[in-house]
């Protein structure tokens, strides 16, 4: 039971220092009136049993797809829908 989890955890640990594009579960999020899709891209600074932390991290807002967030962001593993290390943070793609 626990060893299954450890396999994935060990793989995640290897991503420390790498850039990751992470999509989470919410349909949309809202930052002081700015509505955006939960698409985050950043360098993995920390991997723990329940979450990963991206620092620095950009939020891919429709009008500001390279908005650098002023603080790191931690993402609970249970909220992550998908992630890729092969999409660079400066990639441009539609967010609508």
């Amino acid at each position, binding site marked *: 039971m626990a060893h299954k*989890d450890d396999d994935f955890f060990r793989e995640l640990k290897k991503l420390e220092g790498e850039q990751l594009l992470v999509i989470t*579960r919410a349909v949309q*999020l809202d930052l002081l009136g700015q509505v955006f899709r*939960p698409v985050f891209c950043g360098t993995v600074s920390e991997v723990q049993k*329940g979450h990963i932390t991206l620092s620095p991290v950009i939020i891919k807002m429709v009008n500001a797809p390279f908005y650098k967030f002023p603080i790191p962001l931690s993402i609970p593993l249970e909220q992550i829908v998908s992630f890729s290390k092969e999409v660079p943070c400066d990639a441009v793609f539609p967010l609508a």
Partner: protein
Amino acid sequence: MNQQSEFKAINDIREEAIVTHFRKNKDKKVFILTESFPFMFIGKIKEVLDDTAVLDVQTTSVPALEGKEWILHIDAIEVFYIETGIGPKIPDLKD
């Protein structure tokens, strides 16, 4: 043990790990985004009860909801950042 219950156990382990992480950071300042209204909370983690965090909320998207104690379901947190003293400080995001 069949596969389905194995996966369930992994989900439980991760949720428990997040709750433990919040409990370890009691009295720290936290920034939280949720999909649900009012979307953003900035405040201090006062207590962790089961899978909920008791927050002293200083800032939300809605001024009328600030300065209050809020109880937040930890499973509903989409992204967060806890100020630990090592990393950057949570800015005053109010305009």
